[in-house]
């Protein structure tokens, strides 16, 4: 019953921290270098997943349910965000026929 999973015993929690940070940063870089709104948005999802992963890892290591419940809420929020975000992207596409964010610079200065 109270068997501690191998992974928790063998892998230090710090590794998960570095791993999640790396995943997070890949998301950040993706947001920075891509210009397609949809891909940028996918990279944001990547960032959120990095957060989820770290949260789950910490919660699992400490056998704390709170962290896992939080992940659940992050997923819910992410779903809501995707729903609105894609609606906005589609709406913009209708007007501009593009999802390239670099072309959207009427508002400036």
């Amino acid at each position, binding site marked *: 019953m109270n068997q501690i999973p191998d992974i928790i015993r063998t892998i230090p929690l710090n590794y998960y921290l570095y791993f999640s940070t790396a995943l997070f940063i890949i998301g950040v870089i993706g947001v920075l270098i891509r210009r397609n709104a949809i891909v940028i948005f996918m990279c944001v999802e990547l960032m959120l997943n990095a957060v989820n992963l770290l949260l789950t890892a910490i919660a699992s290591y400490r056998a704390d349910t709170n962290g896992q419940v939080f992940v659940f*809420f992050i997923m819910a929020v992410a779903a809501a965000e995707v729903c609105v975000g894609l609606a906005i992207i589609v709406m913009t596409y209708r007007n501009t026929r593009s999802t390239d964010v670099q072309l959207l610079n009427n508002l400036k200065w």
Partner: protein
Amino acid sequence: MTSIILLSIFGIINLFVGFMKSKRILLPLSLLFLAVVFGANLFSWNEAQSYFNHMLTIDNYAVAFTGIMVLATLLLLPFSQHYIEEANENLAEFYSLLLFSLVGAIMMVSYENMLMLFIGIEILSIAMYVLAGSDKRRLRSNEAALKYFLMGAFFTGVLLFGIVLIYGATGSFYLTDIAATAAVNDGTVNAMFTLGLLLLVIGISFKISAAPFHFWAPDVYEGTPTLFTSYMSTVVKIAGVAAFYKLMAAAFAASYAAWFPTLIAITVLTLVVGNIGAVVQTNFKRMLAYSSVSHAGYLLMALVAFNERSDASILFYSLSYALATIVAFAVLQYVSEQRNGDETYAAFNGLGKTNPLLAFAMTVAMCSLSGIPLTAGFFGKLFVFTAVVQDARLMWLVVVAVLMAAVGIYYYFKVVIAMYMQPAADAAKIRIGSFASFMLIFITVFTILLGIAPALVSDLL
């Protein structure tokens, strides 16, 4: 708690009422709802209580900020008349989204758990992404929505990463637990804690458009339909700052040394960028966007001061700022609508002659925003500055802020000069409904009243 429940229910009722053919009932109904919420909220005064396993606490702080935010919404809704006149199909959705987003805003001022903060921010933000793009066929509105959304989602990620790191370091999402852990460890638990704290500060700074995370604000404010810009720059900003202060006071008071240098740098940068940026604008709406950045700076000053006067100063400043901003955006909305969508200063030329009321309300609002005495804004600034100088070492911050306020007067008075000194290019009188005029008068009188008797509000907290 009552306000949250009521607002959720009223939002749904509004959606259903939207099925009816006539949209005229929606505005009075929404105003009534808001008035009810405002009244119900007052019953919680001095009756601090925590709900649902300490998920949120409705104390005087929460009640006061809820009151201001509901009041602000109540005051800016009457300026949605043009939507009614043009029989906008989505009117019910607009009102519902505003009511729902208030739920998020209230969560942000009463949370006790990071999860509540996060959900509150998200409810508010998602509603704002939608409202920013609500003028679907205008490219600028689309652009504003997309920009706001992409950057907002990105910073949600940053904010969450901060929350997770804090959780990792302290093992809890509750503010009190975090504060307890931090206090034991001398305010600095470990590097992970500090990193999380800084990311959290950055995430919220983005939400309240503090420099250097303000880049979205001018563009989004300009592109968003004016009514919702007004909402964004009042309610959203107030909720953000109130949440920020609550976070710092309840969870990170012991870690003052860890966030103070960063926050003070952000504050100064915000003041400078907001004010200097506003000077060169020719578009009034964009100027107001920059000015709202600068006001975030003044609000942050009170936060930086971080003493027993901070909360009351933030409260008073928020109220004075909200009143003036609502008027500014409302007048802008009427003027630009009836002058071919012109949002530049030139659109206001000769308004003093054609519409003395609009011009006067605008003048009072500008005086209040720039902090001229006998308006609420003066005391807002005064309270913030006195809160800051409690710590004599922060005198230099006040010097910067006063200099920047001086710059502020320059650009705020540009519109006053345009209204009274420039000849009217288009002498047509701006039409405005009688209820909206009444609201303008009410807000103006309220602004002056607070400038004469600030004690009405300043000692609530």
